[in-house]
């Protein structure tokens, strides 16, 4: 229902949709145009976006170069300094066994990054492919595919995950694969919705009318326009996967100890919540910042590429 008629409730020609609503529409306030002309919105992505991106880069560097970075060994206990507060010896303190928190965070980043990147890649490639097929060819292919997808989605994901994990095992690879496999349906939906939207656009229609082959339309017109929105969604999904790993660690089902994972660190730290809250706080903050950054970046890109959540 999008008519090109000017929206009568908010006739602000040229204003972005974000700004059109900034009048509160039926707001009671009578302040006339607070500082007219001062609001100069930058077209860029803003400081917060770049801060978030920097944080993600730091996490990525930690994950890739964990062994090369000048941090202590994540497994060696410093028996005298159990539950130490942050200080010159241990920049971020130590855990209940006296292991260096900073070192464990850096090494734990590897688990988070491997699982999330693998899972998201699998989901994106397979799910994206299926979604594009469904959205492009429509008809029976779509009906069958989407029925299956909807049935899988009718199952709470964590339940599926638990069952699979328990019976298949829980190495880093297996967990990544299973999570990736389970996330296929949601990417299929996103990709299908985006494909449907793109296929309706004029340049695609034009291309088809001019007699372009399906394969050509798919490769030249659809794919490039679907990849970016799906990737933006993938960033947000990465945050979900990181939380999921944390959840598994909490349930004792993540990668086996003593390998450090963020979820495992939070789970271990919970025991010392009375005497040394920082042991649980520091990994929590790391996880929170990472997920938040992924959400921020993903959201900013999603807005850019104009994927509407409502189409899902």
């Amino acid at each position, binding site marked *: 229902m999008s008519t090109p008629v000017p929206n*009568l409730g908010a*006739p602000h020609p*040229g204003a972005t949709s974000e700004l059109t609503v900034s009048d509160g529409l039926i707001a009671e306030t009578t302040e006339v145009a607070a500082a007219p002309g001062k609001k100069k919105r930058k077209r860029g992505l803003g400081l917060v976006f770049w801060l978030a991106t920097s944080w993600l880069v730091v996490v990525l560097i930690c994950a890739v170069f964990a062994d090369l970075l000048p941090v202590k060994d994540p497994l060696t206990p410093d028996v005298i300094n159990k539950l130490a507060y942050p200080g010159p010896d241990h920049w971020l303190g130590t855990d209940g066994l006296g292991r260096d928190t900073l070192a464990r965070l850096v090494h734990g980043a590897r688990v988070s990054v491997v699982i999330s990147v693998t899972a998201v890649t699998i989901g994106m490639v397979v799910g994206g492919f299926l979604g594009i097929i469904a959205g492009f060819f429509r008809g029976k292919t779509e009906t069958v595919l989407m029925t299956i997808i909807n049935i899988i989605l009718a199952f709470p994901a964590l339940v599926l995950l638990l069952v699979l994990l328990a019976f298949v095992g829980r190495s880093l690879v297996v967990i990544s694969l299973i999570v990736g496999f389970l996330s296929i349906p949601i990417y299929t939906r996103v990709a299908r919705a985006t494909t449907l939207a793109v296929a309706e656009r004029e340049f695609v229609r034009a291309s088809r009318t001019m007699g372009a082959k399906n394969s050509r339309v798919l490769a030249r017109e659809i794919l490039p326009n679907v990849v970016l929105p799906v990737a933006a969604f993938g960033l947000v999904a990465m945050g979900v996967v990181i939380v999921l790993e944390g959840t598994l660690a909490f349930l004792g089902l993540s990668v086996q100890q003593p390998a450090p994972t963020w979820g495992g660190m939070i789970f271990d730290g919970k025991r010392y919540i009375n005497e040394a809250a920082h042991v649980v706080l520091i990994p929590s903050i790391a996880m929170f910042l990472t997920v938040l950054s992924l959400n921020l970046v993903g959201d900013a890109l999603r807005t850019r590429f104009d994927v509407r959540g409502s189409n899902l």
Partner: protein
Amino acid sequence: MSTARPLDGRVDEPLLEVDDLRTYFDTPRGVVKAVDGVSLRVDRGKTLGIVGESGSGKTVLSRSIMNLLPKNNTIREGSVRFEGRELTTMKNKEMRTIWGAELAMILQDPMTSLNPVTKIGEQITESLGIHLGEKGKTARAHAVELLKSVGIPAAERRLGEYPHQLSGGMRQRVTIAIALACGPKLLVADEPTTALDVTVQRQILDLLESQQHQRNMGLIIITHDLGVVAGRADEIAVMYAGRIVERAPTKELFARNRHPYTEGLLRSIPRLHQPSHTRLQAIPGRPPELIDPPAGCRFAPRCNYAQDKCLTETPLLAPHAAGHEAACHFPVGTTAGQEALERNLAAGRTAAGTPLDSTLIATAGAA
């Protein structure tokens, strides 16, 4: 409730008087001058047609008159007097006693101007409750009466129905019934027929006209279609790029239009007496951006009469006949205008650099 009631306020006082109204929006791209110095007057029982293409600011003008615009990031100057009361400075709280009761409005699209999840009856009785204190059976009876008066069959049954169960024309009748519920003194109809089928358009306009006569109500019809207001409005104001460029009693306007833009609008209406396959003349180009409107006459870039003067000096509304004003340096139908056109025809282009269309040259030469 069908006869004209005695009116409060002095009789010689206009119902609505808009004086030099300006409405600007502060947007990230700059200040949009959507309404830039508009003056109007509507008397009791009279109809004013405001005509302009989309983007001319006519919708903003109607919202500005109604005092419906958001208060922040909107700059509003000038005055709107409704029965002598200044509306521009009124708070929403005061406005609520006027909205619906004395000042009503109907919108373009009846699909969207009714609440999809509320029954018709409730939508009509709501304002009866607010302004007249009517409740329950009284309100229902009144609602039925209103629906009947706007020509809705089986009115009783309609009360319990939802908007999506009605056709577009029926829905617009319902919105008219809602607008008329409390006997307003002025009704602002913003493109009341644009979203409707041609056959239904006429019925709705006839309905508006008859209701207006019965109630001695002032009526403002805003439209992009001169044909809609042709036989109905007492006076027509032509709006272009946030300003009124010509204003005249309807007959006078059709007989002796002075502004080239009005001329263009009139030429783009198909006529029955023309042979079929006559090419309608479109006005070339688009209305200017309202953020940085061109200096001088805003219509100059699209105008066949444009001279150097038009690019630098802004024309003001000047009287041509009784009640007839136009804002043009070289008005249509005057010697100055004819000379300007001939000069441009000779040059093949206007002072603004717009080439003249050959078909236009033919008709213009014949005229």
